[in-house]
């Protein structure tokens, strides 16, 4: 009687006493369907989805882009009304005090407004845009308290201050009068949490609340949510694509795929015995920190890909023994890049961004060097400097033994042909007005590599095939491709000029895990075929473990640890490296880890003119494993 639509698949064990559990569930979603658009253009974003949320428990809803998980979360509070979505079927039964259920699908606007922000609150993905830029933090938190609890302005302000302290923000008093732009992303997300928890909601819906944050900040935010949930007895619906976060946060898990719920189970069962092929495929693609422990070389492993409802393995297992350590292709020595910011009335520079400070490293042919770090660590600036998009302030860069600074204009141009770049956002880095074929051919034309049109076309077709696409795709435009396909096109474009070194700047970060795993495999395969060197810039430690030969960890513009992949992951020496590794959520609920308590913001690389940062010296702890000698300044920060 409770399932109006088809009974969801794989309801196991714990669900056998469905009726019993449902009577005490805080929220029961029943056969919920949400549609966008009308008539023939209608799109079913959510199809007949049902699940229960128990009081005080955490339900994770996982899925990749387009799975309908975010729409589901918005539909619970009927916020889809404002995005053009229509609930075409189903019930959302909410029991705020364990008694009579209210069907939110049929509730009046007044009733909904009473519940929103009061009984059910929501945290969104982008902390940078979740707060209204023109109102103070205090005003935005007080608003809910005045509205739902009838507090006076003064009392609301006092309570807002308490809430800010609860989410462990220092200087709560001063923060009340600050504006969002004066806060970092992590701080804004804490404000958002304070705002959401202001009225002690029974249910908190968190839609990818940590996806946009650095990993050490993510760890802190997850901690806060968990602690406050226990303290206040709040139930949480945690929407995420990150299986690591699921393993750390969830009691129960709902897996969504193409708008449908494909599996539901307690968190341990999902990881240990996934039933639906999609869940199995998803889990096989998730990079797991520590999965290559004891192995000296990076490794390609098969990825399960959904093909007509069945998960099929793609690719094989292959050790990536490609690096040749006789002579480096790129030598970077004491590279420094600074930017001027902040000028006085008379145009004098007052502050500088010390993006990169005396960084030295080599890359060898066929090798992948990963550059890891959080926002402001300077990792991307290094990539841009090597690609000559940014002028360095000091230091030398030698490519193939030649000093870049001493090169003629023409030589520098030719260097661009040998060093190519793959950007993070495959949507923004292809010109929407040119065919894909043209975009790939452009570097060939610019560098005058092939002048015959027919030959050039053949080359484009070859490149498309090498990245797993088809020759006829050359005539299409970027909007006709998915994110993963576009990133393949970007790779084909990067390879068009036959480069020796490819800089991949967060190139797989924006992709769904199953696509990400395939692109990582593709990059490794191409490395083997073409003896490519990669500078792999990323914040994602799990991907680094899979792809790289050596790793450089960056913190505030300097390298704090450099060594082989095995050395960094199995024998991390620097406190920041350890902190970074400890902060990464691991996609395995069985694994108990001694967690470091992480506190504090990532410091800013902006300094007043005249205050130069101290350059730390490195010592070699084992052959090829260099660690920065920790000064007080560095230890204090990390």
């Amino acid at each position, binding site marked *: 009687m409770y399932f109006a639509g088809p009974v969801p698949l794989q309801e196991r064990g714990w669900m056998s006493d469905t009726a019993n559990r449902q009577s005490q569930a805080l929220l029961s979603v029943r056969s919920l369907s949400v549609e966008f658009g009308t008539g023939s253009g209608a799109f079913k974003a959510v199809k007949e989805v049902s699940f229960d949320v128990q009081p005080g428990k955490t339900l994770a809803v996982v899925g990749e882009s387009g799975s309908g998980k975010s729409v589901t979360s918005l539909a619970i509070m009927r916020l889809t009304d404002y995005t053009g979505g229509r609930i075409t079927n189903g019930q959302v039964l909410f029991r705020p005090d364990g008694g009579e259920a209210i069907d939110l699908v049929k509730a009046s606007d007044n009733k909904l407004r009473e519940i929103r922000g009061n009984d059910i609150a929501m945290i969104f993905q982008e902390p940078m845009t979740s*707060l*209204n830029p023109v109102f103070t933090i205090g005003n935005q938190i007080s*608003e809910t308290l005045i509205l739902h609890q009838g507090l006076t302005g003064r009392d609301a302000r006092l309570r807002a201050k308490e809430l800010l302290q609860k989410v462990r923000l220092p200087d709560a008093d001063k923060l009340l009068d600050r504006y969002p732009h004066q806060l970092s992303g992590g701080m804004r997300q804490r404000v958002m949490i304070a705002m959401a928890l202001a009225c002690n909601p029974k249910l908190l819906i968190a839609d990818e609340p940590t996806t946009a944050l650095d990993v050490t900040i993510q760890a802190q935010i997850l901690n806060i949510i968990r602690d406050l949930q226990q303290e206040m007895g709040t139930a949480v619906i945690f929407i995420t694509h990150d299986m690591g976060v699921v393993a750390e946060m969830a009691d129960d898990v709902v897996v969504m795929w193409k708008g449908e719920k494909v599996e539901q189970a307690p968190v341990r069962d999902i990881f240990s015995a996934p039933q639906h092929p999609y869940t199995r495929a998803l889990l096989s693609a998730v990079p797991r920190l520590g999965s290559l422990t004891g192995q000296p070389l990076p490794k390609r492993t098969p990825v399960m890909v959904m093909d007509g409802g069945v998960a099929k393995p793609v690719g094989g297992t292959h050790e990536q023994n490609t690096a040749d350590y006789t002579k480096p292709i790129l030598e970077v020595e004491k590279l420094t890049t600074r930017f001027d910011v902040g000028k006085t009335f008379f145009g004098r520079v007052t502050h500088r961004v010390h993006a990169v400070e005396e960084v030295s490293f080599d890359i060898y042919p066929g090798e992948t060097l990963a550059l890891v770090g959080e926002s402001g660590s300077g990792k991307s600036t290094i990539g841009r400097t090597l690609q000559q998009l940014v002028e360095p302030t000091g230091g030398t860069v030698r490519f193939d033994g030649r000093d870049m600074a001493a090169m003629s204009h023409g030589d520098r141009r030719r260097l661009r042909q040998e060093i190519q770049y793959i950007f993070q956002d495959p949507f923004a880095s292809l010109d929407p007005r040119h065919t894909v074929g043209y975009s790939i051919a452009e570097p060939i034309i610019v560098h005058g590599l092939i002048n015959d049109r027919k030959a050039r076309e053949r080359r484009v077709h070859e490149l498309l095939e090498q990245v797993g696409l088809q020759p006829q795709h050359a005539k299409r435009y970027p909007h006709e491709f998915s994110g993963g396909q576009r990133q393949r096109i970007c790779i084909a474009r990067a390879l068009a000029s036959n480069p020796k070194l490819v800089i991949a700047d967060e190139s797989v970060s924006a992709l769904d895990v199953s696509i990400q795993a395939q692109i990582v495999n593709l990059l490794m395969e191409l490395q083997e075929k073409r003896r490519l060197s990669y500078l792999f810039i990323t914040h994602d430690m799990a991907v680094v473990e899979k792809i790289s030969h050596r790793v450089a960890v960056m913190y505030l513009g300097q390298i704090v640890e450099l060594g082989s992949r095995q050395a960094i992951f199995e024998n991390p020496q620097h406190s920041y490296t350890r902190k970074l590794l400890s902060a990464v959520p691991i996609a395995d609920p069985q694994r108990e880890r001694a967690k470091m308590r992480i506190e504090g913001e990532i410091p800013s690389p902006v300094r007043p003119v005249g205050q130069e940062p101290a350059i730390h010296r490195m010592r070699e702890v084992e052959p090829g494993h260099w660690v920065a000698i920790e000064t007080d300044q560095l230890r204090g920060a990390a």
Partner: protein
Amino acid sequence: MAGFILKRLLQAVFVVLAVTLIVSFAIRLSGDPAVMLVGGAGSVSEQDLQNIRQALGLERPFYVQYFSFLEGILTGDFGKSFMGGTPVSLLIKNALPATLLLAFASLITSIILSVPLGIYAAVNRGRWPDQAIRILSLVGLSFPNFWLAIMMVLFFSIMLGLLPPSGMEGPESFVMPALTMAIILTATNVRLVRTSMLETLSQQYIMVARSKGLRDRVVLYKHALRNSAIPLVTYIGLQFGGLIGGIVIIERVFNWPGMGTLAFDAIANRDYPVLQGTITVLALFIVLINLLVDIAYGLIDPRIRTE
């Protein structure tokens, strides 16, 4: 913020200087005021014309005339009209309030009309109220202002006999000129408010505001409007120059005794001091309004204030 305002003030001085220079120079290309004064060439001897020029100070080199004009501005003395010898400052003192009244009344009317209409259109995007408002705005944009003014006179004064067709006598005479300007301004502003609102409404903090359980009115008028106001305020600053230009024409049609009428007559009469004076004062006002707009940004948007 203080440094920013200081910078803008310095810029403003240069803008006003440039305007005075261009105006002084350009009007001297229009012909000889002495000939105008005596009622046309050939009616008096060259010697007489020479004497008139001498009396008006026109025989001096251009830069001397220009600097004496600048010197006058600093002491509030714009010279005397070539026609009748009334001090220009007195003429401006009489005409300026009439023009400012018209300008601000039409601007404020247009804001009162365009903000709710624009928001209503944005909220109902793609539905019939939005279509209707957009079509009306396009109709408003398509009218030349003088044509609209004449149609108003025909309808309200001649057909209905409700309002006086021209002049400035009592509040009734003020309705038509102000309304004509307001309609034209509203036609543009309503579109601007709509676009700007649509942009703001798609922001995440609006969804956050809704998730807090706030009423639509609070979401729209508190959370959204202040964010949408930034482009609107910028545009109004830019619009002010065009508004003054439009007023010159409207003042002619309604025979409104403002700065536009004054400037228009001065051009026809080659009355250098009056034209230089009126244009300088109008330029000062436009610069001042834009300075206020810059300050308003800071008040609306803390990101600019605390920079």
